[in-house]
């Protein structure tokens, strides 16, 4: 720690920081543009100028850039020095020389960092009277709008896109006052993290195109904390609504999880909430006549019909969902009783989740947060395609490979925040990253070594590495010399690291890779190292559902088939994604009554006898547990229209409707508000005991007040429904949380989940996050970043996994069909967003060129492939990273429901081949 003197006051700061960050951490307002807490300083914009004095006798001092000045002990500066202030105002005046001053029509207006800094420096009068330079804008795809005239040349966009996110197709062109930031040619920005440009850009050059289509000002949004539902990482978001439409998703800082950034799927996938395919009314099939479509029904009647069927049912099965909240799943479990509650996932997935939980619950190695991943200095990934399955984790690993070279940076006495100097010193050196998988992406260019192989071979590599590191670990016979070498390299890198990380996933369906990953981590632990483990899971609450437990899906199918039950309740789940269509058809058709509770139409809802409209994430409160085992709360942002209600509320009503007349309510029937739901969830399983600590309870108040979801400047309240009535109704009451659907309430320091949007006086843009942190880049004050439900209690592993698979052997007539996740296309909900849908590629079959030759298939040709009874039209991709003897099937909407991995005789299954089309 060090002491610096600012305007004659002393402050304690971290001497590893620069003066700008140190001042911001103490709430001192110094304007800046090019510095970013996640990207360090480059000293380009000159906005952060302060006066530095040699000592207390120095009267004149000199201007320095605070972002480039180390906060060493005794540093003496002045922010309020008149010369410094005048210079900073001049910098704004210079930036205004070419700025179009189009705030009224600019999407950034009202949350614009340039506006904020202009006001902060008090510059008001433009003296430049000459022509401004103008640029042509580019069409950059469905996510981002481009308006180059507003550019203040801070270079943040290219530093973020290229240096931080590994992107290649955005760059700076030209020079002097004609520099241009864009692509070589118009076209969709390729990088999966391009959306963060809208927050990184301090002006309106890069803005959210999806938001543009239903634009409103930041201050007019009603907002609350949300958790992204599109993968298992659980990034925190802020969802903003107005007039019943969800308008946009922005990043919500969580120091342990997503930090400052999201992936594009999470940022732009929200339009399913506004989809025309939303279920807004209860729909009932009268008399179970399945030849007729269902009819909209009033809620009390729908409930009564459902309750009646439930009361008369000869056995009910309840299918939970890994994308429904914990509370919703617990509600269903309570309604149908635990022995009739089934996890609505396929058996393979259930097995893998169970293994993963056991590894964390009984082993000595803790799970890694995304923040941990960023700090790792050696990473080994077994089988998971991070870029497509858990993109934000891939982004974190791009930062992890900077860790190991930092040693040399420190030796050269270069401060770590001196970004350009760090990069010049490090050049192309990267820390160890070993990626084993079966599809190459651009992310693999950053790997030290890549290994493309079938899952069993990947597992064998993992077991071999563990064997090489640990004592008494099972070893792997019959390894090729290349794999032996690779094993050595990986083992060495992991053992030399301070914070090694092992990652695997469930997508490939391989139990062995998960076990191998555990062995590696446990071997490192045995050798006295501090490893972490991370498993990529399928969905946003896969971990939560697994912790809750429940029966096998096949047992549910059996129960109906054998007549032991005749009534089915499906919670937020499209069963056609979980099992083969024929089995699901039989299941739903055999059941006498099918009750479905979900938010968006899909194939399963079409089979419902009673369809109840559930709320989506932003329309309800709930808890998800992410792949790290972190339980996080999402809050309702707005009251949905129609008869939409939280799933747990539907189940609670059903519970009341089906309970005995006059009897006391118990279980879910007794739930009245969300606090009840949380308490019940906390007792539903031992692992869930701490759910109540995740966020403040519904009764939490500050100075007796609730916390408003709306800003003080939220406009139009009295006229929003003036087309319906001139009366201003009281705002809806929120019984489920400390938040209110109102402008009124407490506005002061808050526990982080209750912050509606980041804002502070003078900081209207997202940079306001600085004002919520004690150290910029560090945790928010009173941060409640979720609760890790699983921490290791064992001090050592109880035993090794010993089932080592045989080497994968390609066979003459069978190919192993493996699933290839697609960041755009594999996630059910985001696929419903038009912007995401535009990015979904055509379904393809990936083959090694030699297999392609064997099957006489040409690259880019089209085939019809019969899989599990259905014919799919696919494009052929010949890809050398596809292991021989396997075939990759891209997981896009047209092919969901194919159960993989599976062996397929491609010679038979490919029925026709179309001639190669021109590219």
């Amino acid at each position, binding site marked *: 720690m060090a002491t610096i003197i600012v305007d004659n006051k002393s402050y304690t700061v971290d001497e590893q920081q620069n003066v700008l960050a140190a001042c911001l951490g103490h709430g001192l307002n110094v304007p800046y543009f090019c510095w970013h807490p996640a990207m360090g300083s480059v000293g380009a914009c000159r906005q952060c100028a302060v006066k530095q004095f040699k000592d207390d006798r120095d009267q004149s001092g000199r201007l320095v850039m605070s972002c480039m000045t180390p906060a060493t002990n005794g540093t003496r500066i002045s922010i309020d020095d008149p010369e410094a202030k005048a210079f900073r105002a001049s910098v704004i005046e210079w930036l205004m020389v070419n700025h179009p001053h189009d705030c009224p029509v600019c999407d950034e207006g009202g949350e614009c960092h340039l506006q904020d800094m202009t006001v902060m420096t008090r510059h008001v009068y433009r003296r430049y009277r000459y022509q401004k330079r103008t640029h042509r804008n580019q069409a950059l795809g469905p996510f981002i709008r481009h308006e180059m005239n507003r550019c203040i040349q801070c270079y943040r966009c290219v530093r973020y896109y290229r240096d931080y996110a590994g992107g290649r*197709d*955005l*760059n*700076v*062109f030209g020079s002097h006052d004609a520099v241009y930031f864009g*692509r070589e*040619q118009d076209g969709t920005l390729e990088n999966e993290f391009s959306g963060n440009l809208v927050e990184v850009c301090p002006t309106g050059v890069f803005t959210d195109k999806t938001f543009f289509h239903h634009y409103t000002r930041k201050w007019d949004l009603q907002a609350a904390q949300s958790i992204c539902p599109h993968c298992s990482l659980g990034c925190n978001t802020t969802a903003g609504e107005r007039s019943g439409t969800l308008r946009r998703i922005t990043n919500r800082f969580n120091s342990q999880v997503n930090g400052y950034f999201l992936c594009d799927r999470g940022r732009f996938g929200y339009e399913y909430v506004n989809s025309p395919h939303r279920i807004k009314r209860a729909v009932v099939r009268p008399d179970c006549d399945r030849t007729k479509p269902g009819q909209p029904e009033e809620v009390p009647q729908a409930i009564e019909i459902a309750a009646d069927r439930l009361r008369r049912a000869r056995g009910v099965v309840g299918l939970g969902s890994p994308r429904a909240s914990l509370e919703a799943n617990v509600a269903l479990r309570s309604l149908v009783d635990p022995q009739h509650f089934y996890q609505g996932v396929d058996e393979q997935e259930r097995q893998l989740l169970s293994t993963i939980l056991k590894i964390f619950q009984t082993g000595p190695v803790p799970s890694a947060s995304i923040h941990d991943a960023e700090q790792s200095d050696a990473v080994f990934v077994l089988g998971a395609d991070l870029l497509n399955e858990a993109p934000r984790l891939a982004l974190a690993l791009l930062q992890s490979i900077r860790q190991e070279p930092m040693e040399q940076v420190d030796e050269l006495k270069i401060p770590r925040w001196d970004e350009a100097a760090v990069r010049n010193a490090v050049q192309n050196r990267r820390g160890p990253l070993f990626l084993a998988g079966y599809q190459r992406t651009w992310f693999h260019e950053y790997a030290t070594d890549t290994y493309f192989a079938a899952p069993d071979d990947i597992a064998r590599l993992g077991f071999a590495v563990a064997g090489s590191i640990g004592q008494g670990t099972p070893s792997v016979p019959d390894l090729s010399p290349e794999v032996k070498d690779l094993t050595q390299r990986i083992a060495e890198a992991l053992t030399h690291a301070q914070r090694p990380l092992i990652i695997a996933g469930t997508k490939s369906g391989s139990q062995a890779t998960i076990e191998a990953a555990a062995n590696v981590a446990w071997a490192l632990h045995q050798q006295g190292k501090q490893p972490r483990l991370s498993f990529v899971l399928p969905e946003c609450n896969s971990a939560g559902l697994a912790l809750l437990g429940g029966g096998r899906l096949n047992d549910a199918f059996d129960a109906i088939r054998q007549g032991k039950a005749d009534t089915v309740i499906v919670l937020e789940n499209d069963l056609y994604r979980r099992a083969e269509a024929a089995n699901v058809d039989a299941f739903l058709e055999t059941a006498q009554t099918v009750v479905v509770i979900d938010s968006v139409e899909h194939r399963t809802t079409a089979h419902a006898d009673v369809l109840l409209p559930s709320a989506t994430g932003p329309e309800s409160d709930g808890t998800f547990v992410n792949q790290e085992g972190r339980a996080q709360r999402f809050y309702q942002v707005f009251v949905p229209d129609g008869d939409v209600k939280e799933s747990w509320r539907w189940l609670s009503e059903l519970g009341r409707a089906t309970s005995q007349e006059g009897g006391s309510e118990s279980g879910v029937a007794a739930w009245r508000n969300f606090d009840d739901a949380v308490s019940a969830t906390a007792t539903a399983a031992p692992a869930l005991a701490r759910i109540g600590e995740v966020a403040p309870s519904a009764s939490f108040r500050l100075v007796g007040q609730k916390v408003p979801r709306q800003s003080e400047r939220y406009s139009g309240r009295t006229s929003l429904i003036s087309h319906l009535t001139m009366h201003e109704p009281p705002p809806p009451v929120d019984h489920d949380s400390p938040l209110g659907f109102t402008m009124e309430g407490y506005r002061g320091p808050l526990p982080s989940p209750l912050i509606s949007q980041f804002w502070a006086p003078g900081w209207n843009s997202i940079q306001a996050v600085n004002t919520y942190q004690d150290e910029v880049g560090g945790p928010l004050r009173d941060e409640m970043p979720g609760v890790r439900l699983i921490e290791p209690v064992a001090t050592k592993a109880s035993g090794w996994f010993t089932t080592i698979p045989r080497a994968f052997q390609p066979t003459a007539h069978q190919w192993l069909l493996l699933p290839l996740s697609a960041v755009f296309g594999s996630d059910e909900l985001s696929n419903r967003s038009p912007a995401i849908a535009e990015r979904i590629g055509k379904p393809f079959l990936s083959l090694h060129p030699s297999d392609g030759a064997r099957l006489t298939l040409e690259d880019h040709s089209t085939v019809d492939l019969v899989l599990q009874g259905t014919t799919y039209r696919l494009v052929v991709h010949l890809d050398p990273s596809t292991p021989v003897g396997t075939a990759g099937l891209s997981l896009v909407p047209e092919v969901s429901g194919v159960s993989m991995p599976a062996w397929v005789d491609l010679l038979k299954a490919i029925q026709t081949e179309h001639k190669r089309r021109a590219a």
Partner: protein
Amino acid sequence: MLSEIERRELEDAVKHYPDKRGAAIDALLTIQRRRGWISDDTLFEIAQFLEITAEDLDSVATFYNLVFRKPVGRHVAFMCDSISCWIKGCEQVQEQIKKLYDVDLGQTTSDGRLTVLPIACLGQCERAPALLIDQDVYGNVTPEKIEQIVEKYK
């Protein structure tokens, strides 16, 4: 497509740098000597050779004065417009060029013969005004001498 000679020249250029990216400027100038200017296609070919993206290479190409990303005439005349040449009358020379060949700074003659561009100090200050046509330097240029100088460049 890069020709054999071009490829060999690029390979020679790359030898002088520990990594291929270092040869970016050399590569651009080498190919430009043969092709006159760097079109989008040429840019892409060179980028491929250097194993960098077209964006990376264009980011560098568009920074520098001597890399032409638009077509130029058969000959390029650089008129020094820095201070010593200005004092000694480079503007009159420019006006004469305009009169004779109907071409302004930044333009190419309609017959594709000559592109006229400004350039910063050619280091011929003791013989100002100075002119660089292709690789030939001319000092003490006057409006009267222009025609005779430019005639050599067909």
